[in-house]
């Protein structure tokens, strides 16, 4: 079933991809026998039967992920999303501290060790990267470190 659902979604995407290749993409004028639309057309036409094959003969019936795990994964994705959202405005040190705290606590770290770990990753990571390796990271609200 899982395979079928995924194949169904893929099918819709691939149909869209192929329709765009056949209708939208067009060069204003061209001299070559193959234009920008030919390659996506070929890909679409090869991909569609492959997807139909998986739809007809799926080999993974269920993902085998318990409900609690789904919750954990959803929390992880939310954390990553928040980390990405805060990365620039808040700056590397604070955003990283918050993210590491949240994730390590969720994975069962004790509060004190999580604090030490998150603080170390945020502060050390920032200075090792920006000062030692000269890699660009956002300073964010802690403008004194810029």
């Amino acid at each position, binding site marked *: 079933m*899982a*395979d079928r659902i*995924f194949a169904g979604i*893929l099918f819709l995407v691939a149909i869209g*991809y192929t329709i*765009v290749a056949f209708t939208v*993409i*067009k*060069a*204003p004028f061209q001299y*070559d*026998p*193959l*234009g*920008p639309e*030919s*390659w*996506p057309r070929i*890909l679409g036409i*090869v*991909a569609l039967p*492959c*997807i139909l*094959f*998986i739809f007809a003969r799926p*080999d*993974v019936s269920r*993902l085998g*992920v318990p409900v609690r*795990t789904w919750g*954990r*994964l959803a929390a*992880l*994705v939310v954390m*990553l*999303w928040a*980390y*990405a959202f805060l*990365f*620039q405005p808040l700056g*590397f040190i604070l955003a990283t501290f918050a*993210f*590491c705290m949240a*994730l*390590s606590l969720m*994975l*069962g*770290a004790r509060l004190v060790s*999580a604090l030490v*770990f*998150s603080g170390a*990753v945020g502060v050390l*990571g920032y200075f090792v*990267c920006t000062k030692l*390796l*000269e*890699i*660009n*990271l*956002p300073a964010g609200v802690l403008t004194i470190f810029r």
Partner: protein
Amino acid sequence: MDAVFSGLASGFQVALDPFNLFLVLGGCFAGTLIGALPGIGPINGVAILLPIAYGLGFPPESAIILLAGIYYGAEYGGRISSILLNVPGDAGAVMTTLDGNPMARNGEAGKALSLSAVASFVGGTFAVVLMSFFGPALASYAIHFSPSDYVALMVFAFASLASLVGSNPVKTLLAALMGLMLASIGIDANTGVARYTFGIPDLLAGIDFLVVVIGLFGMAELITLVEKQATGTLKTLKIDKSFVTLKDIAFVKWTILRGSVIGFFIGILPGTGASVASAVAYGAEKRSASDSSKFGEGDMRGLAAPEAANNAAAGGAMVPMLTLGIPGSGTTAILLGALMLFNVTPGPLMFEQRPEIAWGLIASMYIGNIALLIINLPLVGLFARMLTIPQQFLTPLIAVLAFIGVYSVVSNPHDLYMITLLGVFGWFLRKLQFSLAPVILGFVLGGLFEDNLRRALSISNGDYTILVESMNSVVLYALAVLVVVAPLVIARRRKKMRDEADHGETA
């Protein structure tokens, strides 16, 4: 022949430059560390560290030497978690666990680790030596390849990929197609027409290679770690005082040599890397052994064969990458993409136009192999300590490294959302038993495949027969058919034989 030696000499000049030498050693060390982390294989290690290596602003030959060192080191480090934890870092290391872990449980952990280091060293060095002779010869032959020959080569590459990688050929092919489709997003270089950008300016230049790599490998790995949620430390077996003896090496010397040969030649096949090589080497060794009963319970041959093979395959996979511009494995696809980031196009011309990169890389692999053997024998205890890093700290660290890497390259916060999305996508693919390496191969080769097809048809003015006119392309298409059909025939024959055997017993 002279060209090989003068090339090697110039390569060693590059590789022995103090800074590059430092990078080889540093890369090997960092690679072993990251490879030893439970569950993280070479491809994830290289993917996570690639943008950081790129962001450091080194010259291309230095950066690629560093990345190759990481790749090599991770292949070495992978065996540590396989042997001590029974957790393979990637598909290539699965075979190592079969006999390596039982050896460690029998109280021969030290012996298993040192023996596998020696086997890896022989396999790796064998591959580099063959590569320095084969590589230039193949490159000077491939220089005459026409665009239509390249099309045939790609078809062969994807055919061998579909037939040899993963459990379901259709899924592997579809994974490669996804990569090709992702690569088609952005402005078409020939006509300037925007494809699949939907008016989003961030997509005009196409999806960044680094974003795809970090998303599909780094972030998907992270999600998998959280899914399995191994809290606390995993139980590792102790490293004891046992050590490999000359007698042991003499016992397995032919095994190692056979493994190296098998590994190198399977590694050369486009698309098939260490996983296929180590499986074939293990199977061949088990079948040819006169007493195969102890395989799986800690037979030294069962450890030496896949270890020699997967390191030889790592070297072998470099050959098509450097000489043809077609990577031999997922990890070399990432290295190929890395070279392209530096505006270096790997391929037959590289040995002439950028000898410092081609030969410098080869020379650095000689040095890296020796360095890895030296640091691996005494320091294995230090690397094994990586296994005891608590998972709740390791997991956030991977995310932080991925974010640093992606942000440092373009400083565009949009990419941070992109890698998260691609990570979720990659995780679903993994759960549904698609392999991810074909996606990255398709993504890297997409532009090249399309360009050569269009160029070939421009030459012939739209006549499709040009695709099968040259001898090279006919041979390659024949090989492509062979590589697809042969495994099917072999499987059918084996099934038939088994059926007959069953029949004989019941009758």
